[in-house]
């Protein structure tokens, strides 16, 4: 409840972490801002044959080939056409053995909040749209609930199987839920 917007105080508490929030089907989700490399508008991606449906394809990010993940599809939400407000959040995270850059398609980017550790609530047992294992915490800001995602886990387990280097059929990957 005590969480205050960063721009109002201007001072960051040591216990505070900053989160970038985005909208997905009316819900507000947050990811640790340190994992975010940049934000981009949606552009057409080259589809990868035989990839899971939530992999929209790959794009050219200044010479680097970056896969794009459709989070709506991954979370089992209803797909909607990408438009001008559709945003791709480019995240950079440590994978099992290396650093990986990928893009996440969301409906819109919302805010940057500083949330102190004491305001984070563990997620209750819920059977929501997304698997509970990818939700790290819940926080409340201005009476809105924000779902803070464990982005590392989401990518490394929810998108790439652990045996990612193994030569397995793409279809098998991440239908584990």
């Amino acid at each position, binding site marked *: 409840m005590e969480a205050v917007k960063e721009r109002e105080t201007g001072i960051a508490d040591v216990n505070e972490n900053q989160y970038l929030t985005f909208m997905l089907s009316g819900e507000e989700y947050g990811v640790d801002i340190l994992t975010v490399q940049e934000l981009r508008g949606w552009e057409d991606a080259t589809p*990868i*044959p*035989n990839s899971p449906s939530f992999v929209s394809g790959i794009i*050219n990010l200044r010479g680097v*080939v970056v896969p794009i993940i459709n989070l709506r599809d991954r979370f089992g939400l209803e797909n909607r056409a990408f438009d001008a407000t559709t945003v791709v959040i480019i995240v950079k995270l440590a994978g099992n053995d290396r650093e990986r850059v990928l893009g996440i398609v969301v409906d819109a980017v919302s805010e940057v909040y500083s949330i102190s550790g004491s305001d984070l609530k563990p997620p209750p047992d819920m059977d929501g749209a997304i698997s509970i294992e990818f939700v790290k915490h819940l926080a409340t800001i201005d009476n809105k609930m924000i779902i803070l995602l464990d982005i590392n886990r989401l990518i490394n387990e929810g998108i790439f199987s652990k045996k990612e280097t193994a*030569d397995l059929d*793409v279809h098998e990957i991440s239908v584990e839920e």
Partner: protein
Amino acid sequence: MSVDLDQFKGIFFEESFENLDAMETGLLALSEGETDLETVNTIFRGAHSIKGGGAAFGFDVVSSFTHVMEELLDKMRNGEMEADFASVNILLESVDVLRELLKAFQDGLEPDDQRALALKLKLEEIRDGASGVSEIATDSQIEVEAGDTRDEEIIGWTIHFLPYENLLQTGNDPSLMLRELACLGEMSLQVHTQRIPPLAEMDPEKCYLSWDIELKAPVERDAITEIFEWVEDDCDLDIQPVVQPVERRKMERRDEERRTGEGAGLERRKEDRRAVGKDAAPAPSATIRVSTERIDEIIDMVGELVITQSMLSQLGEDLDLAKLEKLREGLEQLERNSRELQEGVMSIRMQPISFAFNRFPRMVHDVSQKLSKQIRLETSGEDTEMDKTVMEKINDPLVHLVRNSIDHGLETPNERLEAGKEEEGIVRLNAYHQGSFVIIEVSDDGSGLDRERIFTKAVERGLVKESDELSDDQVFRLLLEAGFSTAEQVSDLSGRGVGLDVVRKNIEGLGGSIDIRSELGVGTTFAIRLPLTLAVLDGQLFKVGNDTFILPLSSIVESLQMDQKCISGVASDIELYRLRDEYIPIIDLSKTFSINENPKNMENALLVVVELGERHVGLLIDELLGQQQVVIKSLETNYQRVTGISGATILGDGTVSLILDVAGLIEMSHLDQNNGGKQQKMTNNNLVLQEQ
């Protein structure tokens, strides 16, 4: 001295591994019966550097171990000992142990020194055994010249050590040498400070001190000269033995003798040092050494590129139609510049194949002993350059092929004699360029492939039918199929039945192919054909549905418009296309890639015939686009491996396009037809073969 040594450790390890490689190469040369003084010296020098570094960094196991090696080598160097087979083998083993020790230290682990200690004992045994022999050998000379000189007993040494002022600048540190001296025994020393100038004139990088050292240790003179070995030219050094009182006359003579002897030794060592610098063996490491010439060339090219760029931007500022011609010229220049630059940068990655060949002498040496076969390894074309990444990936397949040649190819000495050949079998490694490919050949002069035996075996394994009529070539290719091994006994080396098929898979994965030539009784040659580089390829762009894909131009045999009459279906799903006298399986890309599930109208559709090794398959596509050079980007960096796709590239318009992997496509399309996988692949192959 409170210098942080850690920063030098990395260099020490890198150099030590290079030294070990050089030592190994040298030892192998010795084992071939060559007792060249220079070779022994190269080995000695390697051991010495490792010892020095080891001591400096506190790796006592390493330094004490190399010390014994060094003593042994010193004996060989002075001709006091023969470099016989046994001792060379022990030394080779020592090199292995050292490598293990250093690896452990490098990884920050406590090394397992049991093996080292055991081996050290062995080395000491040889050394002491040898010294016994050498004493007898040199005794006679001494007795003739000096009678009972041998009776005098050295109880210590006095050393006058006056470094020249520039000693420190050569990277040597007297304090380290003194410390090393102190390790030999009880030492007392006197420092002379009279050369130190007034503070104002003092240069901190110069050495003004000198020492008189008394060492109370009955060590050999060599043990002391060795410490000063690197600074001989940069100091006045006088080493006098302290002996039990003996007749003065004799002592003088002996001293003189020693000095002249040492002088000659000095000359020799200086020469050696030069020699070592010259032929220090190249060794693979994570870093690439690039000649400054190449870098200069690249810098020149960048310069030209910048000029072109400024010219173009000037043109862009006020462009009118009249300047169109100039613009076109500039763009042409830009294209030339960028291509040159690309080639220049690529050339940095090119390394001579000797990096890969270097490891084989040792392997052949070991394996030939294990199998008690006599084998000579001949290499040629070591200067052939290829991309470092390709080379790294080809190492294992090469090892496999060489082992295969030794194990299955070459006969035992007896069999060879019976066949009227020399006892010693030859394994030959050869490399050369052919177009944009590198060919690496592994050949042996062994018994050759027995066509009948392979065929019988293949029938047994159900790979082919007895009634099949196959050409020699087709029979030999069966060796490369999974689950095929003709070795009558499963041996330690190869012949577990996993093998050549894996080699083939690896090579095909690199976009290469493998060929077998063999003549019964004369020998066998495996020829590997690999692309020069994995980073850039000439690609053919084409469309399937709305997506653009790329095929390596080198894999395309031809493209054609299909004729309905030539298409025939076999079984449920396989469709074959008759091209002249060959039946080619068709892969419908829109189906394999799930782009468009509707069966395509084959009539007048485009078929691109690609080859993979000897096999041909046809890819059904929608539209052929242009050809262009593409830079290969890995999909695995940020995504994962995708079957049938070898990578991605960025096209001129900034979009990403996928590069097809023909081997993967074939695998996929067979998997799609039937879950039997490999079995299906075989039968399908047979179909093609039978139809011919």
